[in-house]
């Protein structure tokens, strides 16, 4: 156990000494506070834009699905029922395949 600890400490010291030259160089080249602020601001703007885009896509898709469903329900009830059955079967097959894959992986 002691021997193992000794080896571990020896390796830690070797790595520390070996990486020292890399570490010293990086200490001298940290960007300014303004640079970091700009980075954060840019990222926040991008995140907001992404959120707006995703929300728009979600709302458009929801409207499309609702329109199709209400049209089929009131105009063609048989097609509505067929769609319900197809979606149920599709979802069951998808869940089954995903679950089998997960079990095989573990």
């Amino acid at each position, binding site marked *: 156990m002691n021997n193992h600890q000794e080896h571990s400490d020896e390796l830690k010291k070797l790595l520390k000494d*070996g990486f020292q030259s890399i570490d010293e160089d990086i200490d001298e080249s940290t960007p300014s506070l303004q640079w*970091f602020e700009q980075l954060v601001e840019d990222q*926040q703007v991008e995140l907001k834009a992404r959120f707006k885009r995703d929300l728009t896509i979600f709302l458009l898709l929801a409207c499309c699905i609702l329109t199709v469903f209400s049209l089929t329900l009131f105009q063609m009830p048989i097609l509505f029922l067929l769609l319900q059955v197809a979606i149920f079967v599709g979802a069951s097959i998808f869940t089954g395949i995903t679950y089998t894959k997960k079990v095989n992986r573990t």
Partner: protein
Amino acid sequence: MEERDLIKRAKKGNHEAFAILFQEHYPFLVKYLMKVTMNRDQAEELAQDTMAKCVEKIHQYNGKSKFSSWLISIATNRYIDLQRKKKREQNWQNEEVNVRKLKWEMESRNEEWNDVLAAMSTLSEDIRLPIILKHYYGYSYEEIGQLTETPPGTVKSRVHHGIIRLRKELKIDEQPSGT
């Protein structure tokens, strides 16, 4: 201002708090990524990517671990994602080019390209990463397993074999024990 207060303000979207946090942790983050990638450009690029991800995920930080450890876990995931995207063949070639570039950069600054750096550069990234996390940053096998999404037993085996190779490269076992 304390780190906890800065994180609190950052969670509310304060730019300045984020900037102070990042400036404090930037050297630590780039140093870690330099050791892992052996490439300065890639390390700086990944550090920026990590900070961008941190802005997005700051609400998920629960304060249980150190902020620097949380940054390391994001950086490690970004690095692994990047490695997965590249093909293995190209990756190996790129790694050789990276090491040569780093060596040239260091020599041009009259800095020593030492035996440890040379030996570490011969290890593949999946072995170098756990060795650095275990023996330089002091993470446990379980923690490294979580960071790299690898079973702890595999991490232990990789570290073990990596150290044997490292000791061989550095000729540690051949040196007299008294020196």
